């Protein structure tokens, strides 16, 4: 946390807090669905719960962004009244670690779309291992579990990776991220494009 600016931390927490509200809405939505269709109803929407990791890592581009942002979102979700209570913080740590592991593998250098989608899938795998034990998924038959895992992987890639990148890019275009890694990259890209045009 030493290399982080106060600005980056507050911005990261504000984004995490906005998405904590989204997370909580999805939790209640998912709970009602799960009541009707069983826990598999969570799987198609599961990726939304990893989106903060992708957005924060993509915007700030520092080691720990994916993990810490997910923990903050979980913490706020807990304070707002998530069904899992303080346990949701552990879930946040697990999901954040899954995404962070992917960014670690690129040494926090690559932030292309495939990497972001892989980060979403990393969270999918980590959270699935958690559910296997704590949520008692281990009691289900292997075939059913495989279907669940595949849907969750797809959801993680699309809802977290693809959607997360789209949201961050639109934000960068508004100019509010000019002081951050993503905004700086966009500025450089624009400069290069205008140089190209004037030649």
């Amino acid at each position, binding site marked *: *946390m030493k290399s*982080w*600016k*106060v*600005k980056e*931390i*507050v*911005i*990261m*927490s*504000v*984004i*995490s*807090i*906005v998405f904590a*509200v989204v997370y909580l809405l999805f939790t*209640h939505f998912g*709970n*009602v669905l*799960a*009541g*009707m*269709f*069983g*826990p*598999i*109803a969570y799987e198609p929407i599961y990726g939304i719960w990893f989106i903060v990791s992708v957005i924060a890592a993509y915007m700030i581009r520092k080691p720990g962004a994916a993990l*810490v942002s997910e923990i*903050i979102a979980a*913490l*706020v979700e*807990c*304070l*707002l*009244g*998530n*069904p*899992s*209570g*303080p*346990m*949701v*913080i*552990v879930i946040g740590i697990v999901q954040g670690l899954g995404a962070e592991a992917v960014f670690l593998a690129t040494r926090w250098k690559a932030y292309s779309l495939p990497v972001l989608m892989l980060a979403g899938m990393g969270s999918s795998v980590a959270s699935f291992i958690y559910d296997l*034990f*704590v*949520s*008692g998924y281990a*009691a*289900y*038959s*292997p075939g*059913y579990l495989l279907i669940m895992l595949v849907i969750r992987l797809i959801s993680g890639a699309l809802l977290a990776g693809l959607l997360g990148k789209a*949201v961050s890019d*639109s*934000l960068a275009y*508004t100019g*509010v*991220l000019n*002081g951050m890694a993503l905004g700086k990259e966009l500025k450089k890209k624009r400069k290069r494009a205008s140089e190209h045009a004037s030649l």
Partner: protein
Amino acid sequence: MKQPLHLINPTVKAAAVFCCVVMLSFIYNPYTPACFYIIIVAGVLLAAGIPLKKWLLFTIPFLILAFGCVWTAAVFGKVPTTPDNFLFQAGPISINSDNVSVGISLGFRILCFSALSMMFVFTTDPILFMLSLVQQCRLSPKLAYGVIAGFRFLPLLKDEVQLIQQAHKIRGGAAESGIINKISALKRYTIPLLASAIRKAERTALAMESKGFTGSRNRTYYRTLSVNRRDWVFFCLVLLLFAGSFLVSLCFAS
């Protein structure tokens, strides 16, 4: 009014919940979670002074969720059906008693999780929880105060959404009716909402730094929290109650 549970150190309270959840996740018999659930509900209603009506209202969503888990485990459980455990036939699927008992266990597990978390949320001040994490768990103050500052924006989000709505209206933006329009309007709300939140966060961070906030650990606190004997008594009591409900399940099993 301060009830006994409100006075427990937030970190100790959270740790007690963690321990219970971890221990519960190794249990697949229905007796332990059921017994533990009754103990928690009785204990919380007595020691936290939460109105019964509020408690029941918040329990309803978890009942729905628990029901989903029960039938999923019963139908998609991994124990194969044999003549020994066969219960009844539901269309093409035969239900057996082993899977049903695991399902009931998972259902009560969810109810236990919900009761523990409601106990925590209803009796804990969010700011005190953050401060306790800094003082007891050595969480970085830079991060903690950043989160507390961000947490303050939460009530403002609703106003912000209204503001964006009015701005859209004044520029002749179509009012959203129907689900499809509402979903497509989501982007028009998300991006401005996030953008204004980021701008506010930037200003707040600037204000914090200009007032001398460095985020270093070497600082004083207006409110100091400590862990004393009462907290340890609470922690041990929770573990004992869990051990008690585990013993009950042993009695039933034999």
